[in-house]
Protein backbone atom coordinates (compact mmCIF):
# COMPACT_ATOMS: atom_id res chain seq x y z
CA UNK A 1 0.00 0.00 0.00
CA UNK A 2 2.91 2.30 0.65
CA UNK A 3 3.81 2.13 -3.04
CA UNK A 4 0.85 4.28 -3.98
CA UNK A 5 -0.03 7.89 -3.22
CA UNK A 6 -3.51 6.60 -2.34
CA UNK A 7 -3.56 3.26 -0.54
CA UNK A 8 -6.79 2.27 -2.22
CA UNK A 9 -4.78 1.62 -5.37
CA UNK A 10 -3.58 -1.55 -3.69
CA UNK A 11 -7.03 -3.13 -4.09
CA UNK A 12 -6.22 -5.34 -7.08
CA UNK A 13 -2.81 -6.55 -5.85
CA UNK A 14 -4.28 -7.15 -2.39
CA UNK A 15 -7.29 -9.08 -3.65
CA UNK A 16 -5.05 -11.14 -5.93
CA UNK A 17 -2.80 -11.96 -2.98
CA UNK A 18 -5.80 -12.91 -0.85
CA UNK A 19 -7.05 -15.14 -3.65
CA UNK A 20 -3.70 -16.92 -3.77
CA UNK A 21 -4.05 -17.74 -0.06
CA UNK A 22 -7.77 -18.54 0.09
CA UNK A 23 -8.19 -20.01 -3.39
CA UNK A 24 -10.90 -17.49 -4.23
CA UNK A 25 -12.19 -14.12 -3.09
CA UNK A 26 -14.29 -15.56 -0.30
CA UNK A 27 -16.21 -13.29 2.09
CA UNK A 28 -13.50 -13.97 4.71
CA UNK A 29 -10.74 -13.08 2.28
CA UNK A 30 -12.48 -9.86 1.29
CA UNK A 31 -13.08 -8.93 4.93
CA UNK A 32 -9.43 -9.44 5.76
CA UNK A 33 -8.31 -7.26 2.86
CA UNK A 34 -10.93 -4.64 3.75
CA UNK A 35 -9.79 -4.40 7.33
CA UNK A 36 -6.15 -4.00 6.32
CA UNK A 37 -6.98 -1.41 3.69
CA UNK A 38 -9.50 0.45 5.80
CA UNK A 39 -12.31 0.23 3.26
CA UNK A 40 -15.67 -1.54 3.45
CA UNK A 41 -16.02 -5.14 2.24
CA UNK A 42 -18.80 -3.96 -0.10
CA UNK A 43 -16.38 -1.68 -1.94
CA UNK A 44 -14.02 -4.58 -2.52
CA UNK A 45 -16.84 -6.89 -3.57
CA UNK A 46 -17.80 -4.40 -6.24
CA UNK A 47 -14.21 -4.46 -7.46
CA UNK A 48 -13.98 -8.26 -7.31
CA UNK A 49 -17.03 -8.85 -9.49
CA UNK A 50 -15.67 -6.55 -12.18
CA UNK A 51 -12.52 -8.52 -12.98
CA UNK A 52 -12.37 -11.87 -14.73
CA UNK A 53 -9.35 -13.17 -12.84
CA UNK A 54 -10.85 -12.62 -9.41
CA UNK A 55 -13.01 -15.61 -8.51
CA UNK A 56 -16.30 -15.08 -6.72
CA UNK A 57 -16.88 -18.79 -6.14
CA UNK A 58 -14.61 -21.60 -4.96
CA UNK A 59 -12.67 -23.01 -7.91
CA UNK A 60 -10.02 -25.60 -8.66
CA UNK A 61 -6.55 -24.48 -7.69
CA UNK A 62 -5.06 -24.90 -11.16
CA UNK A 63 -6.42 -22.44 -13.68
CA UNK A 64 -6.65 -23.36 -17.34
CA UNK A 65 -7.84 -20.38 -19.37
CA UNK A 66 -8.59 -21.38 -22.94
CA UNK A 67 -8.69 -18.36 -25.24
CA UNK A 68 -11.83 -18.46 -27.38
CA UNK A 69 -11.60 -15.05 -28.96
CA UNK A 70 -11.54 -14.41 -32.69
CA UNK A 71 -8.01 -15.41 -33.71
CA UNK A 72 -8.00 -18.57 -31.60
CA UNK A 73 -11.53 -19.54 -32.61
CA UNK A 74 -10.55 -19.26 -36.27
CA UNK A 75 -8.00 -21.95 -35.48
CA UNK A 76 -10.18 -24.35 -33.55
CA UNK A 77 -10.38 -22.95 -30.01
CA UNK A 78 -13.97 -24.00 -29.42
CA UNK A 79 -13.19 -27.65 -30.05
CA UNK A 80 -10.09 -27.30 -27.86
CA UNK A 81 -12.10 -25.83 -24.99
CA UNK A 82 -14.66 -28.64 -25.24
CA UNK A 83 -11.84 -31.20 -25.15
CA UNK A 84 -10.22 -29.63 -22.08
CA UNK A 85 -13.56 -29.38 -20.30
CA UNK A 86 -14.35 -32.98 -21.05
CA UNK A 87 -10.94 -34.24 -19.95
CA UNK A 88 -11.03 -32.23 -16.72
CA UNK A 89 -14.66 -32.98 -16.00
CA UNK A 90 -15.18 -34.06 -12.40
CA UNK A 91 -11.58 -33.21 -11.45
CA UNK A 92 -11.81 -30.59 -8.74
CA UNK A 93 -8.17 -29.65 -9.11
CA UNK A 94 -8.90 -27.69 -12.29
CA UNK A 95 -10.57 -24.39 -13.02
CA UNK A 96 -11.20 -24.59 -16.76
CA UNK A 97 -12.57 -21.42 -18.31
CA UNK A 98 -13.16 -19.91 -21.70
CA UNK A 99 -11.27 -16.64 -21.71
CA UNK A 100 -11.21 -13.49 -23.79
CA UNK A 101 -8.20 -12.71 -25.98
CA UNK A 102 -5.10 -13.52 -23.95
CA UNK A 103 -2.76 -11.72 -26.33
CA UNK A 104 -1.07 -14.74 -27.86
CA UNK A 105 -2.80 -15.10 -31.23
CA UNK A 106 0.54 -16.11 -32.72
CA UNK A 107 0.23 -19.49 -30.98
CA UNK A 108 -3.49 -19.95 -31.57
CA UNK A 109 -5.27 -21.93 -30.33
CA UNK A 110 -3.71 -21.49 -26.94
CA UNK A 111 -4.28 -21.63 -23.21
CA UNK A 112 -2.85 -20.06 -20.11
CA UNK A 113 -2.09 -22.75 -17.56
CA UNK A 114 -1.49 -21.21 -14.14
CA UNK A 115 -0.17 -18.19 -16.01
CA UNK A 116 2.07 -20.12 -18.40
CA UNK A 117 1.13 -19.62 -22.05
CA UNK A 118 1.14 -22.76 -24.22
CA UNK A 119 0.22 -23.28 -27.87
CA UNK A 120 -0.54 -23.98 -30.63
CA UNK A 121 -2.50 -26.74 -28.96
CA UNK A 122 -3.93 -29.77 -30.68
CA UNK A 123 -6.69 -31.86 -29.13
CA UNK A 124 -4.06 -34.60 -28.66
CA UNK A 125 -2.07 -32.32 -26.35
CA UNK A 126 -4.88 -32.08 -23.79
CA UNK A 127 -4.22 -35.25 -21.76
CA UNK A 128 -0.51 -34.41 -21.48
CA UNK A 129 -1.35 -30.84 -20.47
CA UNK A 130 -3.54 -31.97 -17.59
CA UNK A 131 -1.10 -34.72 -16.59
CA UNK A 132 1.78 -32.26 -16.41
CA UNK A 133 -0.21 -29.98 -14.14
CA UNK A 134 -1.44 -32.80 -11.89
CA UNK A 135 2.09 -34.17 -11.53
CA UNK A 136 3.50 -30.72 -10.77
CA UNK A 137 5.70 -30.82 -13.87
CA UNK A 138 6.57 -27.93 -16.15
CA UNK A 139 3.55 -27.78 -18.46
CA UNK A 140 4.12 -28.79 -22.10
CA UNK A 141 7.71 -27.50 -22.23
CA UNK A 142 7.84 -27.83 -26.02
CA UNK A 143 4.78 -25.63 -26.45
CA UNK A 144 5.61 -22.74 -24.16
CA UNK A 145 5.34 -19.31 -25.69
CA UNK A 146 8.39 -17.88 -23.95
CA UNK A 147 10.62 -20.36 -25.74
CA UNK A 148 9.56 -19.26 -29.20
CA UNK A 149 11.72 -17.06 -31.40
CA UNK A 150 10.29 -13.90 -32.93
CA UNK A 151 8.32 -14.56 -36.13
CA UNK A 152 10.13 -11.73 -37.91
CA UNK A 153 12.92 -13.66 -39.64
CA UNK A 154 14.73 -10.46 -40.63
CA UNK A 155 14.94 -9.45 -36.99
CA UNK A 156 16.50 -12.78 -36.09
CA UNK A 157 19.33 -11.97 -38.45
Amino acid at each position, binding site marked *: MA*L*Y*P*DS*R*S*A*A*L*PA*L*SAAQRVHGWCSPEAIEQVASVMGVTPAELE*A*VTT*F*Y*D*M*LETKPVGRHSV*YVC*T*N*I*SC*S*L*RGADALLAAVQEAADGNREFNVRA*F*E*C*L*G*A*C*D*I*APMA*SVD*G*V*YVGPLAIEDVPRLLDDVSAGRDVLPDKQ*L*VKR*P*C*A*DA*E*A*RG
Partner: protein
Amino acid sequence: MSEKLLFKDIDEPGLNTLSVYEARGGYASLRKALQMVPEDVLKELEASGLRGRGGAGFAMGKKVSFLPKGAIEKYLVCNADESEPGTFKDRELMQKTPHMLLEGLIIASYAAGTSRSFIYIRGEYVQQADVLDAALGEAREAGYVGEQILGSAHSLSLVIHRGAGAYICGEETGLLDSLEGKRGNPRLKPPFPANQGLYQGPTLINNVETLSTVPAIMRMGGAEYAKLGTETSTGTKLVSISGHVQRPGNYEIELGIPSREIIYGLAGGPPEGRQIKCWFPGGSSAPVLTPEDLDVPYDFDSLAKAGSMLGSGAIIVVDDSTPIVEVAMKLAKFYRHESCGKCTPCREGTNWTVKMLERIDSGQATPMDLDIMASVQEHIIGNCLCVLGDAMAMPIGSMIAKFRGEFEAHIESRRLEPVHA
Protein backbone atom coordinates in the same frame (compact mmCIF):
# COMPACT_ATOMS: atom_id res chain seq x y z
CA MET B 1 14.53 -5.33 -45.74
CA SER B 2 13.05 -2.77 -43.44
CA GLU B 3 14.96 -1.22 -40.62
CA LYS B 4 14.58 -2.88 -37.20
CA LEU B 5 14.45 -0.42 -34.35
CA LEU B 6 12.33 -2.25 -31.79
CA PHE B 7 13.15 -5.76 -32.90
CA LYS B 8 16.89 -5.18 -33.28
CA ASP B 9 18.60 -8.09 -31.50
CA ILE B 10 15.18 -9.20 -30.24
CA ASP B 11 16.18 -12.83 -29.91
CA GLU B 12 19.61 -12.14 -28.46
CA PRO B 13 19.86 -14.45 -25.46
CA GLY B 14 19.70 -12.48 -22.23
CA LEU B 15 18.51 -9.24 -23.84
CA ASN B 16 16.06 -9.01 -20.94
CA THR B 17 19.00 -8.51 -18.57
CA LEU B 18 20.66 -5.18 -17.93
CA SER B 19 24.15 -6.35 -18.84
CA VAL B 20 23.24 -7.59 -22.32
CA TYR B 21 20.97 -4.61 -22.95
CA GLU B 22 23.77 -2.22 -21.99
CA ALA B 23 26.29 -4.13 -24.07
CA ARG B 24 23.97 -3.52 -27.02
CA GLY B 25 24.01 0.20 -26.39
CA GLY B 26 21.14 0.29 -23.95
CA TYR B 27 20.60 3.34 -21.72
CA ALA B 28 22.91 5.47 -23.90
CA SER B 29 19.81 7.33 -25.08
CA LEU B 30 18.86 8.08 -21.49
CA ARG B 31 22.33 9.44 -20.77
CA LYS B 32 22.09 11.58 -23.89
CA ALA B 33 18.62 12.86 -22.92
CA LEU B 34 19.71 13.78 -19.40
CA GLN B 35 22.47 15.97 -20.89
CA MET B 36 19.78 17.98 -22.64
CA VAL B 37 17.10 20.22 -21.13
CA PRO B 38 13.66 18.58 -21.00
CA GLU B 39 12.26 21.05 -23.55
CA ASP B 40 14.80 19.88 -26.11
CA VAL B 41 13.97 16.24 -25.47
CA LEU B 42 10.33 17.11 -26.06
CA LYS B 43 11.31 18.85 -29.29
CA GLU B 44 12.97 15.66 -30.53
CA LEU B 45 9.82 13.68 -29.72
CA GLU B 46 7.69 16.21 -31.57
CA ALA B 47 10.05 16.26 -34.54
CA SER B 48 9.87 12.46 -34.79
CA GLY B 49 6.17 12.61 -35.64
CA LEU B 50 5.70 9.45 -33.55
CA ARG B 51 2.02 8.61 -33.24
CA GLY B 52 0.66 6.58 -30.35
CA ARG B 53 0.92 2.84 -30.95
CA GLY B 54 -1.92 1.80 -28.68
CA GLY B 55 -4.83 2.39 -31.01
CA ALA B 56 -5.78 6.04 -31.27
CA GLY B 57 -2.65 7.16 -33.14
CA PHE B 58 -2.38 10.52 -31.40
CA ALA B 59 0.93 12.38 -31.78
CA MET B 60 3.04 11.44 -28.78
CA GLY B 61 5.04 14.67 -28.57
CA LYS B 62 1.87 16.72 -28.64
CA LYS B 63 0.39 14.60 -25.86
CA VAL B 64 3.43 15.30 -23.69
CA SER B 65 3.16 19.02 -24.43
CA PHE B 66 -0.47 19.07 -23.19
CA LEU B 67 0.67 18.46 -19.62
CA PRO B 68 0.62 21.65 -17.57
CA LYS B 69 4.04 23.05 -16.69
CA GLY B 70 5.21 23.88 -13.22
CA ALA B 71 5.90 22.13 -9.95
CA ILE B 72 2.75 20.10 -9.49
CA GLU B 73 2.59 16.35 -9.02
CA LYS B 74 2.22 14.82 -12.47
CA TYR B 75 2.00 11.18 -13.42
CA LEU B 76 3.18 9.01 -16.26
CA VAL B 77 1.27 5.80 -16.85
CA CYS B 78 2.32 3.16 -19.31
CA ASN B 79 -0.65 1.30 -20.74
CA ALA B 80 0.43 -2.33 -20.87
CA ASP B 81 -3.09 -3.69 -20.70
CA GLU B 82 -2.79 -5.06 -24.22
CA SER B 83 -6.21 -6.66 -24.70
CA GLU B 84 -7.41 -5.72 -28.16
CA PRO B 85 -8.18 -9.07 -29.81
CA GLY B 86 -5.43 -9.91 -32.27
CA THR B 87 -2.79 -7.77 -30.56
CA PHE B 88 0.28 -9.29 -28.93
CA LYS B 89 3.18 -7.00 -29.83
CA ASP B 90 3.63 -5.38 -26.41
CA ARG B 91 3.84 -8.83 -24.92
CA GLU B 92 6.85 -9.70 -27.07
CA LEU B 93 8.56 -6.39 -26.25
CA MET B 94 8.06 -6.74 -22.50
CA GLN B 95 9.07 -10.39 -22.56
CA LYS B 96 12.26 -9.93 -24.53
CA THR B 97 13.43 -6.36 -24.16
CA PRO B 98 11.93 -4.91 -20.98
CA HIS B 99 14.74 -2.42 -20.49
CA MET B 100 13.88 -0.71 -23.77
CA LEU B 101 10.46 0.08 -22.32
CA LEU B 102 11.96 1.25 -19.03
CA GLU B 103 14.50 3.45 -20.81
CA GLY B 104 11.80 5.01 -23.01
CA LEU B 105 9.59 5.57 -20.01
CA ILE B 106 12.33 7.28 -18.03
CA ILE B 107 13.16 9.58 -20.96
CA ALA B 108 9.47 10.42 -21.44
CA SER B 109 9.12 11.18 -17.73
CA TYR B 110 12.07 13.55 -17.99
CA ALA B 111 10.53 15.35 -20.99
CA ALA B 112 7.14 15.55 -19.30
CA GLY B 113 8.44 16.49 -15.87
CA THR B 114 6.76 13.62 -14.05
CA SER B 115 8.29 12.11 -10.95
CA ARG B 116 5.89 9.24 -10.41
CA SER B 117 5.15 6.55 -12.94
CA PHE B 118 3.24 3.31 -13.25
CA ILE B 119 3.15 0.46 -15.70
CA TYR B 120 -0.33 -1.03 -15.73
CA ILE B 121 0.11 -4.54 -17.13
CA ARG B 122 -2.82 -6.86 -17.76
CA GLY B 123 -3.10 -9.55 -15.11
CA GLU B 124 -2.95 -12.37 -17.62
CA TYR B 125 0.63 -11.42 -18.57
CA VAL B 126 2.11 -13.11 -15.51
CA GLN B 127 5.38 -14.11 -17.11
CA GLN B 128 5.92 -10.70 -18.69
CA ALA B 129 5.18 -8.90 -15.43
CA ASP B 130 7.77 -11.10 -13.71
CA VAL B 131 10.32 -10.15 -16.38
CA LEU B 132 9.49 -6.46 -15.92
CA ASP B 133 9.78 -6.75 -12.15
CA ALA B 134 13.25 -8.24 -12.50
CA ALA B 135 14.30 -5.58 -15.01
CA LEU B 136 13.03 -2.81 -12.76
CA GLY B 137 15.05 -4.25 -9.88
CA GLU B 138 18.19 -4.11 -12.01
CA ALA B 139 17.43 -0.61 -13.28
CA ARG B 140 16.90 0.64 -9.76
CA GLU B 141 20.13 -0.95 -8.61
CA ALA B 142 22.00 0.74 -11.46
CA GLY B 143 20.55 4.13 -10.62
CA TYR B 144 18.35 4.49 -13.69
CA VAL B 145 15.21 4.65 -11.56
CA GLY B 146 14.96 6.42 -8.22
CA GLU B 147 16.35 9.62 -6.78
CA GLN B 148 18.55 11.86 -8.92
CA ILE B 149 18.94 9.55 -11.85
CA LEU B 150 22.59 9.31 -12.96
CA GLY B 151 23.43 12.35 -10.89
CA SER B 152 20.88 14.58 -12.61
CA ALA B 153 18.09 16.55 -10.92
CA HIS B 154 15.51 14.15 -12.30
CA SER B 155 13.92 11.62 -9.93
CA LEU B 156 11.39 8.98 -10.78
CA SER B 157 9.50 6.31 -8.89
CA LEU B 158 8.07 3.43 -10.87
CA VAL B 159 5.50 0.84 -9.84
CA ILE B 160 4.53 -2.17 -11.92
CA HIS B 161 0.84 -2.68 -11.31
CA ARG B 162 -0.88 -5.89 -12.37
CA GLY B 163 -4.49 -5.80 -13.55
CA ALA B 164 -6.96 -8.62 -13.03
CA GLY B 165 -8.61 -9.23 -16.38
CA ALA B 166 -10.83 -6.62 -18.00
CA TYR B 167 -10.61 -5.44 -21.61
CA ILE B 168 -12.01 -2.04 -20.72
CA CYS B 169 -8.98 -1.24 -18.56
CA GLY B 170 -7.06 -0.71 -21.79
CA GLU B 171 -9.24 2.35 -22.30
CA GLU B 172 -7.17 5.08 -20.70
CA THR B 173 -9.70 6.45 -18.23
CA GLY B 174 -10.95 2.97 -17.34
CA LEU B 175 -7.31 2.13 -16.68
CA LEU B 176 -6.94 5.11 -14.35
CA ASP B 177 -9.99 4.11 -12.30
CA SER B 178 -8.66 0.57 -12.12
CA LEU B 179 -5.25 1.84 -11.02
CA GLU B 180 -7.02 3.79 -8.29
CA GLY B 181 -8.40 0.48 -7.04
CA LYS B 182 -11.90 0.76 -8.42
CA ARG B 183 -13.98 -0.95 -11.06
CA GLY B 184 -12.51 0.00 -14.42
CA ASN B 185 -15.30 2.28 -15.57
CA PRO B 186 -14.38 4.87 -18.19
CA ARG B 187 -14.76 8.53 -17.27
CA LEU B 188 -16.43 11.38 -19.04
CA LYS B 189 -13.99 13.35 -21.23
CA PRO B 190 -13.18 16.21 -20.99
CA PRO B 191 -11.42 16.72 -18.66
CA PHE B 192 -8.74 14.75 -20.44
CA PRO B 193 -6.13 12.85 -18.42
CA ALA B 194 -3.51 15.46 -19.35
CA ASN B 195 -5.38 17.86 -17.07
CA GLN B 196 -7.14 15.57 -14.66
CA GLY B 197 -6.08 11.97 -14.67
CA LEU B 198 -4.70 9.69 -12.01
CA TYR B 199 -5.64 10.89 -8.51
CA GLN B 200 -7.05 13.96 -10.29
CA GLY B 201 -3.54 15.04 -11.26
CA PRO B 202 -2.20 15.71 -14.77
CA THR B 203 -1.35 12.37 -16.34
CA LEU B 204 0.46 11.26 -19.47
CA ILE B 205 -0.61 7.84 -20.72
CA ASN B 206 1.39 6.01 -23.36
CA ASN B 207 1.38 2.54 -24.84
CA VAL B 208 4.30 0.10 -24.39
CA GLU B 209 5.38 0.24 -28.03
CA THR B 210 5.20 4.04 -28.07
CA LEU B 211 7.50 4.35 -25.07
CA SER B 212 9.78 1.59 -26.34
CA THR B 213 10.34 3.63 -29.50
CA VAL B 214 11.63 6.63 -27.57
CA PRO B 215 15.23 5.37 -27.08
CA ALA B 216 15.58 4.88 -30.85
CA ILE B 217 14.29 8.40 -31.48
CA MET B 218 16.81 9.86 -29.03
CA ARG B 219 19.59 7.85 -30.60
CA MET B 220 18.74 8.82 -34.19
CA GLY B 221 17.31 12.27 -33.57
CA GLY B 222 13.67 13.07 -34.19
CA ALA B 223 14.19 14.40 -37.71
CA GLU B 224 16.07 11.30 -38.81
CA TYR B 225 13.37 9.03 -37.37
CA ALA B 226 10.71 11.00 -39.26
CA LYS B 227 12.38 10.05 -42.54
CA LEU B 228 11.16 6.50 -42.02
CA GLY B 229 7.61 5.66 -43.01
CA THR B 230 5.32 8.20 -44.63
CA GLU B 231 4.97 11.91 -43.98
CA THR B 232 2.07 11.54 -41.55
CA SER B 233 2.81 8.02 -40.33
CA THR B 234 6.46 8.12 -39.46
CA GLY B 235 8.71 5.34 -38.37
CA THR B 236 8.40 1.61 -38.02
CA LYS B 237 5.51 -0.29 -36.48
CA LEU B 238 5.10 -3.67 -34.94
CA VAL B 239 2.34 -5.61 -36.63
CA SER B 240 0.74 -8.61 -34.94
CA ILE B 241 -0.72 -10.87 -37.57
CA SER B 242 -2.96 -13.81 -36.78
CA GLY B 243 -5.92 -15.87 -37.90
CA HIS B 244 -5.79 -17.67 -41.23
CA VAL B 245 -2.18 -17.06 -42.22
CA GLN B 246 0.70 -19.47 -42.51
CA ARG B 247 3.22 -17.57 -40.38
CA PRO B 248 1.36 -15.70 -37.63
CA GLY B 249 3.47 -13.52 -35.36
CA ASN B 250 4.94 -10.07 -34.79
CA TYR B 251 6.76 -8.26 -37.58
CA GLU B 252 8.41 -4.87 -37.58
CA ILE B 253 7.56 -2.99 -40.76
CA GLU B 254 8.12 0.48 -42.08
CA LEU B 255 4.79 2.28 -42.14
CA GLY B 256 3.36 2.75 -45.61
CA ILE B 257 4.27 -0.59 -47.20
CA PRO B 258 1.41 -2.32 -49.04
CA SER B 259 -0.78 -4.41 -46.74
CA ARG B 260 -0.40 -7.29 -49.18
CA GLU B 261 3.31 -7.40 -48.46
CA ILE B 262 2.60 -8.01 -44.78
CA ILE B 263 -0.19 -10.53 -45.21
CA TYR B 264 1.35 -12.49 -48.07
CA GLY B 265 5.04 -11.59 -48.05
CA LEU B 266 5.73 -11.83 -44.33
CA ALA B 267 2.92 -13.99 -43.00
CA GLY B 268 2.65 -16.27 -46.01
CA GLY B 269 -1.01 -15.60 -46.81
CA PRO B 270 -3.90 -17.96 -46.11
CA PRO B 271 -3.43 -21.74 -46.10
CA GLU B 272 -3.01 -23.45 -49.47
CA GLY B 273 -6.17 -23.45 -51.55
CA ARG B 274 -8.04 -20.87 -49.48
CA GLN B 275 -8.89 -17.29 -50.28
CA ILE B 276 -9.03 -14.28 -47.98
CA LYS B 277 -12.62 -13.34 -47.18
CA CYS B 278 -11.93 -10.32 -45.05
CA TRP B 279 -9.25 -8.88 -42.80
CA PHE B 280 -9.14 -6.58 -39.82
CA PRO B 281 -6.26 -4.13 -40.27
CA GLY B 282 -6.10 -2.88 -36.68
CA GLY B 283 -7.55 -5.27 -34.15
CA SER B 284 -11.06 -6.64 -33.85
CA SER B 285 -12.45 -3.12 -33.38
CA ALA B 286 -11.47 -2.04 -36.87
CA PRO B 287 -13.99 -2.16 -39.72
CA VAL B 288 -13.18 -5.13 -41.94
CA LEU B 289 -11.54 -4.76 -45.33
CA THR B 290 -11.75 -7.17 -48.27
CA PRO B 291 -9.20 -8.65 -50.70
CA GLU B 292 -9.78 -5.62 -52.93
CA ASP B 293 -8.13 -3.47 -50.26
CA LEU B 294 -4.91 -5.49 -50.08
CA ASP B 295 -2.90 -2.84 -51.89
CA VAL B 296 -3.81 -0.11 -49.43
CA PRO B 297 -0.58 1.17 -47.85
CA TYR B 298 -0.33 0.12 -44.22
CA ASP B 299 -0.30 3.47 -42.42
CA PHE B 300 -2.71 5.53 -40.31
CA ASP B 301 -4.12 7.77 -43.03
CA SER B 302 -4.34 5.33 -45.91
CA LEU B 303 -6.28 2.85 -43.80
CA ALA B 304 -8.57 5.60 -42.54
CA LYS B 305 -9.19 6.65 -46.12
CA ALA B 306 -10.05 3.04 -46.97
CA GLY B 307 -12.75 3.18 -44.28
CA SER B 308 -10.94 1.39 -41.49
CA MET B 309 -8.10 2.10 -39.11
CA LEU B 310 -4.60 1.07 -38.17
CA GLY B 311 -5.63 0.80 -34.52
CA SER B 312 -3.20 -1.28 -32.53
CA GLY B 313 -1.52 -2.70 -35.63
CA ALA B 314 -3.12 -6.12 -35.35
CA ILE B 315 -4.07 -7.80 -38.61
CA ILE B 316 -6.56 -10.64 -38.32
CA VAL B 317 -7.12 -12.60 -41.51
CA VAL B 318 -10.33 -14.58 -42.09
CA ASP B 319 -10.43 -16.96 -45.05
CA ASP B 320 -13.38 -18.32 -47.02
CA SER B 321 -13.78 -21.38 -44.81
CA THR B 322 -15.44 -19.33 -42.04
CA PRO B 323 -19.00 -17.96 -42.30
CA ILE B 324 -19.14 -14.21 -41.72
CA VAL B 325 -22.02 -14.70 -39.26
CA GLU B 326 -19.70 -16.76 -37.07
CA VAL B 327 -17.09 -13.99 -37.05
CA ALA B 328 -19.72 -11.38 -36.19
CA MET B 329 -21.09 -13.55 -33.39
CA LYS B 330 -17.65 -14.06 -31.81
CA LEU B 331 -17.02 -10.34 -31.77
CA ALA B 332 -20.46 -9.34 -30.54
CA LYS B 333 -20.28 -11.82 -27.66
CA PHE B 334 -16.85 -10.52 -26.71
CA TYR B 335 -17.96 -6.89 -26.58
CA ARG B 336 -21.12 -7.84 -24.70
CA HIS B 337 -18.99 -9.59 -22.09
CA GLU B 338 -16.57 -6.68 -21.80
CA SER B 339 -19.03 -3.80 -21.77
CA CYS B 340 -18.74 -2.20 -18.35
CA GLY B 341 -22.47 -1.46 -18.44
CA LYS B 342 -22.24 2.22 -17.66
CA CYS B 343 -23.70 3.60 -20.91
CA THR B 344 -27.01 2.32 -22.25
CA PRO B 345 -26.22 2.23 -26.01
CA CYS B 346 -23.22 -0.01 -25.39
CA ARG B 347 -24.71 -2.19 -22.64
CA GLU B 348 -27.97 -2.80 -24.51
CA GLY B 349 -26.63 -2.51 -28.04
CA THR B 350 -24.03 -5.24 -27.61
CA ASN B 351 -26.67 -7.50 -26.05
CA TRP B 352 -29.25 -6.84 -28.78
CA THR B 353 -26.67 -7.50 -31.46
CA VAL B 354 -25.84 -10.90 -29.97
CA LYS B 355 -29.54 -11.75 -29.76
CA MET B 356 -30.17 -10.71 -33.35
CA LEU B 357 -27.22 -12.79 -34.55
CA GLU B 358 -28.62 -15.73 -32.60
CA ARG B 359 -31.95 -15.24 -34.34
CA ILE B 360 -30.16 -15.29 -37.68
CA ASP B 361 -28.39 -18.48 -36.76
CA SER B 362 -31.51 -20.20 -35.45
CA GLY B 363 -33.61 -19.44 -38.53
CA GLN B 364 -35.96 -16.95 -36.90
CA ALA B 365 -34.67 -13.84 -38.64
CA THR B 366 -35.77 -12.07 -41.80
CA PRO B 367 -33.61 -9.82 -44.00
CA MET B 368 -35.30 -6.88 -42.27
CA ASP B 369 -33.43 -7.83 -39.11
CA LEU B 370 -30.23 -6.87 -40.89
CA ASP B 371 -31.48 -3.32 -41.26
CA ILE B 372 -32.42 -3.20 -37.60
CA MET B 373 -29.03 -4.61 -36.63
CA ALA B 374 -27.26 -2.05 -38.82
CA SER B 375 -29.27 0.76 -37.27
CA VAL B 376 -28.42 -0.43 -33.76
CA GLN B 377 -24.74 -0.13 -34.69
CA GLU B 378 -25.28 3.39 -35.97
CA HIS B 379 -26.94 4.40 -32.75
CA ILE B 380 -24.08 3.14 -30.62
CA ILE B 381 -21.35 5.05 -32.43
CA GLY B 382 -20.45 8.31 -30.73
CA ASN B 383 -23.07 7.98 -28.01
CA CYS B 384 -21.04 6.56 -25.14
CA LEU B 385 -18.36 7.74 -22.75
CA CYS B 386 -15.77 5.50 -24.35
CA VAL B 387 -15.38 3.70 -27.64
CA LEU B 388 -16.02 0.11 -26.51
CA GLY B 389 -19.49 0.14 -28.06
CA ASP B 390 -18.11 1.73 -31.20
CA ALA B 391 -15.50 -0.98 -31.27
CA MET B 392 -18.26 -3.52 -31.84
CA ALA B 393 -20.45 -1.29 -33.98
CA MET B 394 -17.73 -0.43 -36.50
CA PRO B 395 -16.72 -3.97 -37.51
CA ILE B 396 -20.25 -5.40 -37.29
CA GLY B 397 -21.62 -2.48 -39.30
CA SER B 398 -18.92 -3.00 -41.93
CA MET B 399 -19.65 -6.72 -42.12
CA ILE B 400 -23.36 -6.12 -42.72
CA ALA B 401 -22.54 -3.55 -45.39
CA LYS B 402 -19.90 -5.61 -47.18
CA PHE B 403 -21.30 -9.12 -46.76
CA ARG B 404 -25.02 -8.48 -46.87
CA GLY B 405 -25.49 -11.15 -49.49
CA GLU B 406 -23.87 -13.76 -47.28
CA PHE B 407 -25.93 -12.70 -44.26
CA GLU B 408 -29.12 -12.97 -46.33
CA ALA B 409 -28.14 -16.37 -47.69
CA HIS B 410 -27.39 -17.50 -44.12
CA ILE B 411 -30.79 -16.31 -42.92
CA GLU B 412 -32.50 -18.07 -45.81
CA SER B 413 -30.65 -21.36 -45.44
CA ARG B 414 -31.32 -21.48 -41.70
CA ARG B 415 -35.00 -20.75 -42.24
CA LEU B 416 -35.29 -23.69 -44.58
CA GLU B 417 -33.60 -26.06 -42.19
CA PRO B 418 -35.69 -28.03 -39.73
CA VAL B 419 -35.51 -26.57 -36.22
CA HIS B 420 -31.90 -25.79 -35.55
CA ALA B 421 -30.41 -27.27 -32.43
